[in-house]
């Protein structure tokens, strides 16, 4: 058994805000010298204006805490949308070296394989406009949203669950007829993390998950119908089938209660195992174990099963959207899958001679044109990346760059990032008035609770356009197109 002997004891507490050194146009560093227990520097991709926002919460201190994990193989990175989370900041990337480096459930989060899928139609805004109400109504009937709205009718049998967890999207496409062969090329990792093992998953997780396939969940999850309203990169947009006024469908959700339970279960396992491996950390939520340990191996296999469930969840919702579009528009309503990409995972990836376990918590994989995992259709432009805006605001399509591998282990931002707590948003925003305002802007919103609407109001988030601009300027990914929502089904 590999143990990790080197620990520095409990770290000195952080006094004041960390000092950042500017080391690039949009890159700042907290050097190792800032705190004695840091093992690598912490780097943040941001600019001066956004840095002021980042400094308002505890995300920098949390990134410093991440940099104390034993055996990190690269700096701890903060993406431009970084904000305070629990343990890891949201918008954090950290890599350890396989086979003995650490894996930390907290570095992935409870919503394992939360991610985004984009489909594009051949319809344009004008042709869809008269049918929008009906379309949104049908979507809201086809995709269960919110907490506890799982349908028993959708229940997967134990055998189906086993295969979903082990085989992912290929099983849905080949055995259940949910999707097309060509979809598989356009899902990250082909929609299946091959090392998944359903045997490492608890009964509780299965119990939660088997009725949740094809459900949206709550919080900031959504299905949006949008139109392409701006193109930044013609060639990349064309490769992705995007042109001005074209109607798209964006799906943002994850592995639901299944993934939450896997994380809960293994956080406890790791928490109990840390003393055995001599690991001492400044935050219990960072609990981790070596990938080669029994606990680390079990978690990594269970996490992959949850990731497969997440891919399958978005595949199922995508199929429901295809069925609704077919009912509303016949053959002209066909939806092509542009791509499906995760923003809460840990994966083994090759960087030069090293195999690294890259944790992305609220960070999107953004591989460039020459990466072997970039699908054939995007070899000239880079892997598609989708950055959902806050509700009712624009979302963005980007393309990964080759330089992002060097800059941030092939990663970029994942969303707008919260700037304000839910409580503060609720006090500031009148949910009913927001609903009226969105309706006046031509956005059809399906969300039962006005209070919940207020908590997710655009004002509670950072300006997604600025986040994306910094991502572009930093070289992490290139801006391709902007999507404007016209229909929102809120989780």
């Amino acid at each position, binding site marked *: 058994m590999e143990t990790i002997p080197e620990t520095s004891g409990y770290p000195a507490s952080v006094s004041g805000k960390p000092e950042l050194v500017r080391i690039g146009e949009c890159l700042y560093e907290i050097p190792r010298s800032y705190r004695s227990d840091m093992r690598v520097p912490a780097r943040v991709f941001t600019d001066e204006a956004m840095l002021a926002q980042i400094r308002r*919460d505890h*995300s920098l201190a949390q990134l410093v805490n991440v940099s104390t994990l034993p055996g990190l193989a690269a700096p701890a990175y903060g993406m431009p949308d970084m*904000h*305070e*989370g*629990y*343990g890891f900041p*949201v918008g954090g990337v950290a890599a350890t070296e396989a086979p003995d480096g650490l894996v930390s459930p*907290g570095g992935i*989060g*409870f*919503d394992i394989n939360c991610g985004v899928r984009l489909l594009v139609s051949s319809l344009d805004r004008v042709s869809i406009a008269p049918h929008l109400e009906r379309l949104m109504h049908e979507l809201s009937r086809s995709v269960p949203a*919110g*907490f*506890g*709205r799982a349908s028993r009718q959708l229940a997967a049998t134990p055998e189906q669950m086993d295969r979903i967890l082990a085989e992912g999207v290929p099983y849905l496409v080949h055995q259940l007829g949910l999707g097309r062969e060509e979809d598989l090329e356009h899902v990250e990792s082909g929609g299946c993390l091959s090392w998944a093992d359903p045997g490492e998953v608890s009964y*509780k997780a299965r*119990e*939660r998950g088997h009725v949740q396939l094809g459900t949206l*969940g*709550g*919080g900031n999850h959504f299905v949006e119908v949008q139109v392409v309203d701006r193109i930044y990169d013609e060639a990349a947009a064309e490769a992705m089938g995007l042109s001005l006024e074209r109607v798209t469908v964006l799906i943002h959700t994850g592995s639901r*209660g299944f993934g*939450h*339970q896997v*994380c*809960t279960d293994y*956080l*406890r396992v790791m*928490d*109990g195992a840390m003393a055995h491996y001599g690991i001492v950390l400044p*935050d*219990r*939520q960072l*609990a981790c174990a070596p990938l080669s340990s029994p606990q680390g191996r079990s978690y990594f296999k269970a996490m992959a099963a949850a990731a497969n469930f997440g891919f399958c969840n978005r595949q199922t919702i995508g199929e429901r959207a295809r069925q609704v579009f077919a009912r509303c528009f016949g053959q002209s309503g066909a939806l092509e899958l542009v791509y499906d990409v995760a923003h809460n995972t840990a994966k083994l990836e090759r960087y030069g001679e090293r195999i690294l376990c890259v944790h992305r918590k609220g960070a999107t994989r953004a591989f460039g044109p020459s990466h072997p995992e970039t699908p054939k259709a995007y070899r000239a432009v880079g892997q598609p990346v989708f950055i959902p805006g806050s509700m009712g605001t624009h979302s963005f399509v980007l393309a990964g760059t080759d330089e992002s591998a060097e800059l941030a282990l092939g990663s970029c931002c994942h969303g707008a990032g*919260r*700037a*304000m*707590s*839910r*409580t*503060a948003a609720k006090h500031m925003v009148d949910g009913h008035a927001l609903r009226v305002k969105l309706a006046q802007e031509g956005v059809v919103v399906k969300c*039962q*609770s006005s*209070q*919940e609407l207020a*908590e997710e109001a655009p004002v509670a988030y950072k300006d997604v356009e600025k986040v994306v601009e910094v991502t572009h300027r930093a070289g992490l990914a290139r801006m391709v197109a902007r999507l404007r929502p016209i229909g929102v089904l809120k989780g």
Partner: protein
Amino acid sequence: MRSSHQFEEHTSEVKVRVFAPTLPSLFEEACRALAEVMTGTAPPRASEPAQPIEVHADDREALLAAWLNELIYRTEMDGVLYSAPQVEHVSDTALVAKVGAAAVPALKTPVKAATMHELSVAPLEREGGWTASVVLDV
């Protein structure tokens, strides 16, 4: 001291601080706070028969997280809100309770999990009683 709870500022999640005169009442109050996060208001009166719940953990703090995570799991599975707890026994590593539930048509805020970030359970030296702090992933 009466049991009470408050919600503290956190950019993306919900941070709960709980006060109570005794350790059992602290765990009971944490259950009520969780129910309030889920409904967005004071939870309705329990209408479902109380269910026995038993949780174990390595220490007091982990026990609080395990207790809340069990309630989150049960709420999702049973489709009712566990809001009326009666803690019969609590030590540093085990808790035995009966919890009544309320039927609710929908829940406002889904809670993914109770995290171990800044998790604390501690006696109040000067005032007497207990306090706890937990961040919920919502």
